[in-house]
């Protein structure tokens, strides 16, 4: 929960203050958070890769923007140009490359890198299963599907590597290119399929879906169907500009959806293991974290010119102390013990009395 707030606060703050220097502050914060709280799993290792991928994307965007956007005053240099036919948009590719366009695109690219960094940090510090555990019960099955699918990603990466190596080793190091794709894809798919079957048997053997659907769940199913119908019809009515009917239908749909969620949550017999309610420290942490975008928002309402960076005329971006302090509030989770900061993480202290250690 805390981390969810953190990620939302981080992305909001970036969008409120797209000045590159402020964005760099947020990226730095994300990096500090990952190194302090990363869980060490494959997603924590993915952090630098995701940031690198976003950077490459940003650079690509700079190049594309630079050769297609024109109209700045400071010309950097000129390249041969041609204008596309009207059918393809009719814009000019190449020609003068202006400083403003390049800088503007770079600044926007940096914002994207910043948002990806916050997202990657969120993935690195949160345990996805615990995230599912905090979702309403109605969404538990759906969430579990997503978590299991995510758990497949690292195993597929390992599998791709192993298969490639096996293919190379089979011929004693001689590389045969013809048909290589097939030789490398088929074993990965087949191994993945076998793994999926084993996992489904494991789920089944361990009592997943133990009870079967209850009357309430069936009721919830009908409610859900009704809700979807209502919302769909509301959309049709809206398109036909029948505002009043659309409103009524949308309300019916929303009520149905709400009823379905309530029914399913009530019907679930699952008991959650080690739910950890939010403590006062968690609330404090959330409050500090949320303060960051709120403060930035207030600053922007007051009218701080440094939040956005005007590129025309080109000036060195300036910084005020207050927004930086506000952004540094995102570091709040680092002030606490790594284990305690995850809203749902098990506390380190063993609570089981020693008497239960022996077998019953």
């Amino acid at each position, binding site marked *: 929960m805390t981390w969810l707030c953190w990620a939302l606060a981080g992305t909001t703050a970036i969008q409120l203050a797209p000045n590159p220097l402020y964005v760099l502050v947020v990226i730095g914060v994300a990096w500090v958070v990952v190194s302090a709280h990363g869980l*060490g*799993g494959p997603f924590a290792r993915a952090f630098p890769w995701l940031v690198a991928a976003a950077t490459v994307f940003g650079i690509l965007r700079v190049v594309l923007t630079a050769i297609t956007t024109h109209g700045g005053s400071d010309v950097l240099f000129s390249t041969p140009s041609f204008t596309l036919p009207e059918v393809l948009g009719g814009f000019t590719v190449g020609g003068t490359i202006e400083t403003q366009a390049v800088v503007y695109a770079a600044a926007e690219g940096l914002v994207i890198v910043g948002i990806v960094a916050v997202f990657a940090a969120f993935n690195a510090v949160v*345990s*996805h*299963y*615990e995230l599912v555990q905090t979702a309403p019960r109605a969404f538990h099955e759906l969430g*579990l599907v997503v*978590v*299991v699918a995510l*758990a497949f990603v*690292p*195993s597929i990466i390992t*599998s791709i590597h*192993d*298969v490639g*190596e*096996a*293919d*190379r*080793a*089979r*011929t*004693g*190091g*001689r590389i*045969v290119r013809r048909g290589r794709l*097939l030789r490398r894809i*088929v*074993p990965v798919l*087949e*191994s993945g399929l*076998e*793994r999926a*079957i*084993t*996992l*489904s*048997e*494991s*789920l*089944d*053997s*361990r*009592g*997943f*879906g*133990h009870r079967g659907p209850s009357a309430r769940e069936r009721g919830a199913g009908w409610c859900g169907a009704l809700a979807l119908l209502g919302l769909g019809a509301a959309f049709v009515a809206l398109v036909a500009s029948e505002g009043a009917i659309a409103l009524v239908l949308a309300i019916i749909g929303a009520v149905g959806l709400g009823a379905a969620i309530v029914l399913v949550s009530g019907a679930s017999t*699952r*008991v*959650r*293991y*080690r739910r950890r309610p939010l403590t006062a420290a968690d609330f404090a942490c959330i409050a500090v974290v949320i303060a960051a975008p709120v403060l930035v928002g207030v600053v922007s309402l007051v009218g701080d010119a440094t939040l956005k960076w005007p590129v025309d005329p080109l000036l060195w971006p300036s910084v005020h102390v207050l927004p930086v302090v506000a952004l540094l509030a995102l570091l709040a989770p680092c002030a606490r013990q790594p284990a305690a900061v995850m809203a749902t993480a*098990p506390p380190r202290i*063993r*609570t*089981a009395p020693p008497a*239960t*250690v022996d*077998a*019953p």
Partner: protein
Amino acid sequence: MSAFEFRQVSFAYPDADLALREVDFEVAPGEILLVVGSSGSGKSTLLRCANGLVPHSSGGRFSGDVIAFGRSTRSHHPRELADVVGFVGQDPEAQFVVDQVEHDVAFVLENLGIPEQAMRRRVEETLDALGIAHLRDRSPSTLSGGERQRAAIAGALAAAPSALVLDEPTSQLDPQGADDVLAAVSRLNADLGTTVVLAEHRLERAAPLADRAVLVDGGRVASPASPRAVLTGYAGAPSVTRLGRLLGWDPAPLTVREARDAASKHPLIGATIADPLSDARGDMLVRATNLEVMLGAQRALANATIDIGQGEVVALLGRNGAGKTTLLRALARLVEPSRGRVDGSGTVAYVPQDPGSLLFAPTVRGEVAETLRLLGRRDDDAVEAWLERLGIAHLAERHPRSLAGGERQRIAVAAVAVGGAEVLMLDEPTRGMDAASRNALEHAVKAHAAAGGAVVLATHDIELAAQCATRVIVLGDGEVIVEGPARAVLAGSLYAPQVLRVLPPFLTVTDVEIALARTQQP
């Protein structure tokens, strides 16, 4: 009431012949039942019947009835038996649902809707029962093989089932890991009275634990009897049992201790034997000098200097994670060493630990022929010769993925060896293999070495090393700890082969057989 009742069970997978034929026996509550049989004989199918995975998950034709603690699997799905039967399949890694040990253990309890307080207690007890409480926060993918297997058993055990069904729980483990897992299983049986049904190929440790054993052969299951009675005539019996059979000891021993009592006055003890293979080394094929390999930030191999010569079979021993696989991969030039170098004139081929990463052709024959096709050759005789040599000729038209683990392993070896590389690197080749397959593999390995090639085996299987290695290298923590002739190295080891511990200086039953023949000749 018996724990499991199999009543005239016959079963065939979709579009296949019968995998089980009229199986009819009972498992008593509180016993450890050992299921033995060759690769592909139907052991796994039998085990999967116990909680209804067959036929509910597998499909196919099923007749007869299996009653688990009074509930028929005809009317109950595996999930409805989760509170009485815990099941752990062959591949523990693919069975974890949650990426954290503690929550994975709690998964079954959450499904069964156990109250939260009881659930906390049950998880703590289960973690302690298997000795993995210190691993609670870890991800299963970061655990060693033995730890992972114990965590998987914990996931099945948390619901406090009356029975545990384990399919080859020690096949991927080093001797220490296997000991840990079997000790945990036997403790559960003794303390909680949990019924255990256990399929195994490596019987040295499992056989003494079992109360009764059944033999599965071609889908038929004989009625359960004492392990001694079942194993006395069984080809895959522990080597002490086979030794007892050879020397006419009655009753046949199951443990080293029993055998040692019987052997104490045997005239062969202390006999001198010549090592015919120790000087057989020919030209150097591959040489590694001061090899150091980094995997990420971890040093997987340090300062390894190794020569592999013609006619050699080198066994690499060492616990899980000691650097055996890394050394093989480095010798096969699949990883770039950070220091040192690998040189030599010999061509090197490598068979990975998991044959699944190699197999892709629709038939076994096609899989073996594929390697030659890749090398731009066509040699049907060579393909047939390797199929024959590894004892898989009768499976030539089957789909590799439809076969059991030990069979796949041999297909992978055949598919790589057929390419004619001089040095073969086999990574854990006897995983899940029965006695006949192991014999076939041993002969193939020796024949390859005798024909001027060399073989390097990374293995936990001490008996395999004793049987065919000319030289043994023990790795620990990425370093070469001992290197020398097989007999000399194995004699000093805590995990010496069974025969050596009973009748030194003999390493294998075959050695004793040869010595006996010699003493009887004059």
